[in-house]
């Protein structure tokens, strides 16, 4: 079984969602799109990134804790 870290899977999914957003943006350039960007999209990306960065740092710490106490 391939074991991947949850933070890396999360970052990958955030990248995929970003790509879907980039595909939609050229077709969606009105005021409603700008409101969706500022009201939903930008906060979603910021909060997801904050969480995934924190999760990554925690996974690093957990891996170190495991290695450093495995004697």
């Amino acid at each position, binding site marked *: 079984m391939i074991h991947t870290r*949850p*933070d890396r*899977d*999360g970052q990958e*999914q*955030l990248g*995929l*969602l970003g*790509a*879907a*957003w980039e*595909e*939609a943006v*050229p*077709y*969606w350039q009105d005021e*409603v799109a700008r409101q*969706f960007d500022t009201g*939903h*999209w930008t*906060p*979603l990306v910021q*909060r*997801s990134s*904050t*969480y*995934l960065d*924190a*999760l990554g*740092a*925690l*996974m690093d*710490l*957990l891996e170190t*804790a*495991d290695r*450093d*106490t*495995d*004697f």
Partner: protein
Amino acid sequence: MTKIHADIDALKGFHEAMVRFRHVQRSVAERGDDEIELTRAALAARASHWQARLEQSQAEFDACRAGPGADCSGYARAVEQAGEQLEHIRGWQQRVDEAAGEFRGSAGAFWDLLQNDLPRAESHLLALIADLEAARRAS
């Protein structure tokens, strides 16, 4: 994809990506919590192991010292080593608890995003798509 529906199709594609994102990130968050608990359990098991080793080494050291004129330095080193390992593990237990505690804030905000804000954004997007489709049908 016909040109006239390209905008609607692109928004539908984005909506589907948002739904996928929400489902996958829920699993990510759950796995993150699982990793914390697995590490805590592993550290607790190791601490328990070295606590037992320390007690056993101490008993052997005490038994040695109770005897006449024996060299007990090997037992003393074993006690010292077990104590150091146990202290080292307990230090990590404390660091993991502190880091997990700090992480709870980010995790809570992310759960709130997944449970409330993201479904709201998805609904908003669906409504926009429905409006576009209705306008397209009317024209």
